[in-house]
């Protein structure tokens, strides 16, 4: 387990017993890994092929966009904010990509750079308005969600135009072929691990500690010299950029659609909450948040295997959010 889980209690008192700290961190975020394991085992019992390398990689590949979004949502949540605009940002990315690439493979790389820039800019605007202009991030990003939705609709008339080139789509669709035993290692899975690893390193750096400190106690962080606004804007930029990456993967996986991003912001927040990230900031680990996303996808697979789908899926998701938050707040109170 990573040490950032307990960064708040451990702030400045790192003389404590390392072993006990490790155990405590496992206790505070370990639940999600147990839950994830239970779900994997259960799915394997229902459908034994799930544990084979091919199907399991397919599951990871399908989960990659949500895991990446969850990492983005984690940065914002842990700094004490919300980002509700990522779902519509994903839609924007997919629709813009289709229109600009227009089936021409030579456009792919310039467009990818542009898409990432869009993510950065949207994240920066969210962050700037939420911090410097002091608009609550809930309102800022809700507004951004509506703006982006409306913009997509205006620009496309609701039906996306253009087409994605095959080399653009291969990022979310294909992988490295010819690897023994697993046959194909999807690009999305590689990207998933790279982003996962980078996020962990980032959270262990000074920036990560400042981010958690800001979410935990803004005043204390400010007084101890953290540039609170800058750190928070950075979190939004990360969230926007990762949403752009997720959008590129989703476009590759599923193709052009104007509905692709619907509800993703809530899936990402649910994943974080499942992973034990406390809304309001200051607590939670990025690994657990990503595990939360994997759990959510596993849960969807499980529901599908049970023959439950559609509306009930939303209901289950709602119950989980409430249950997870009640459980977390119970645990926090219990610790006092």
């Amino acid at each position: 387990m990573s040490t950032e889980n307990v960064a708040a209690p451990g702030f400045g008192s790192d003389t404590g017993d390392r072993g006990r700290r490790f155990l405590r961190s496992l206790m505070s975020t370990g639940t999600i890994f147990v839950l994830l394991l239970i779900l994997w085992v259960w799915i394997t019992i229902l459908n034994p092929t799930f544990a084979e390398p091919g199907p399991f990689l397919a599951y990871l590949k399908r989960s990659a966009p949500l895991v990446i979004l969850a990492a983005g949502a984690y940065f914002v949540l842990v700094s004490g904010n919300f980002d509700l605009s990522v779902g519509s940002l994903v839609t924007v990315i997919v629709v813009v990509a289709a229109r600009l690439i227009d089936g021409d493979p030579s456009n792919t790389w310039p467009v990818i750079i542009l898409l990432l820039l869009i993510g950065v800019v949207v994240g920066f605007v969210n962050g700037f308005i939420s911090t410097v202009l002091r608009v609550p991030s809930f309102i800022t990003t809700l507004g951004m969600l509506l703006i982006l939705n409306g913009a997509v609709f205006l620009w496309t008339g609701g039906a996306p135009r253009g087409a994605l080139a095959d080399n653009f789509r291969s990022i979310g669709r294909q992988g490295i072929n010819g690897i023994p035993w697993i046959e194909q290692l999807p690009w999305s899975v590689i990207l998933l691990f790279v982003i996962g690893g980078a996020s962990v390193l980032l959270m262990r750096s000074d920036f990560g500690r400042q981010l958690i400190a800001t979410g935990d106690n803004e005043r204390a962080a400010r007084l101890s010299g953290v540039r609170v606004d800058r750190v928070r804007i950075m979190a939004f930029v990360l969230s926007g950029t990762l949403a752009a990456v997720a959008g590129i993967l989703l476009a590759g996986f599923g193709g052009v659609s104007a509905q692709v991003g619907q509800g993703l912001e809530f899936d990402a927040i649910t994943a974080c909450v499942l992973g034990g990230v406390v809304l309001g900031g200051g607590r939670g680990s990025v690994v657990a948040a990503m595990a939360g996303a994997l759990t959510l996808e596993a849960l969807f697979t499980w529901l599908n295997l049970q023959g439950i789908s559609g509306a009930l899926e939303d209901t289950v998701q709602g119950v989980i959010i409430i249950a997870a938050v009640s459980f977390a707040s119970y645990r926090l109170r219990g610790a006092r």
Partner: protein
Amino acid sequence: MTWRRLAGPFALLACCATVAACGTTDDSSSGDKATGGEATPAATEAKKSNTGEQSEFFVQADYDKQLAQRSVTPEGDASKPWTQMIEPEMVSTEKFKSKKSSGWNVCFSNAASDNPWRQNGLITMKAEAENTKEIAKFTVVDAEAKDDKQISDIEAMTSGGKCDAIIIAPNTTATLTPAVEAACKSDIPVLVFDRGVTTDCPVTFIHPIGGYAFGADAAEFLRDNVKEGGKILALRILPGVDVLETRWSGAKGIFDEAGLNVVGVEFTDGDAAKTKSIVSDYIQREGSLDGVWMDAGATAVAAIEAFEDAGQDVPPITGEDQNDFLTKWKDSKLTAIAPTYSNFQWRTAVIAAVKVLKGEEVPKEWVLPQPKITQDNLDQYVKPNMPPLYYALCGCEDLPGFPQKWGGK
């Protein structure tokens, strides 16, 4: 404080209860569907019907009527299917004849424009209105899929006194019926198209044959092209919407009659990524699939890609007249069929309004033909220059502004 200590376990308990409840519902009500879960696929064959309960929207008489109407030759010019009619009963519209010979304001209350089928239709409709010299103004009000908004939209149209004719595409059947009835009481002619209402007060109701015929066309194709005992996956958008329920009922009738092995009926929410995941799951679970039935074509390409990515041949599949599906069908030489929900009905609505305002006869129920695209006529419908979600049966190709207005080049 005791209750606080209890809160945590209680939350956990609630969570477990929900999960357990999901499991139980599944076991009791749809045991036949759940076989995909723990049992091996072979066990499915033991069941009599594996397509689930009949929908509450099912009406046997309508089913029989629609299936029969498919083989009726429509009256009118076959090169303009949007003006054709099936078994029309003409009624006089003399009392609605406009005093003005032109300069009409035709108003349209649209349920929503939230899917490509509706967007494509609306473009055609506006182009037809623009192309009709008698229509000076064509006013569109979008209800954004909200019943209450559409009710007030219609009220505003009837009381505003500015509309010479009102076209309504109702959002839902039951809730909009009183609003349409109220509109009929004004002197303004009311025309309904697309989804229906349960009153016959409008001057005419324009619609293609219907959902049962759509579903049955697709299911019959699979019956004829999938080997005996072959595994069929049925993909639907949502439960509980009448126009979609009838499509499934139509297919279910054919599947049950032929005793086909439907290994799953799943809901995709019309989402391409979800569709692809579901199909991939079934390919893994079943090893392979021998046929895919879909109640709408917007995600058909995603389903096809699931087979491609799994390195399998694409089995016989049904879609709709979206350009991306037709292009894929042609390029990959698939075995496929595309039943359609005649997108050209949007154009017919304007034509009917003009007829009514001129005092010409219209059918009380204007049933339009509902062509299907098969291997034989595929080539004439594939349009390489049109966008992926363009509907081949828009009936818009002779309108001014084609193809740019529809996103083509």
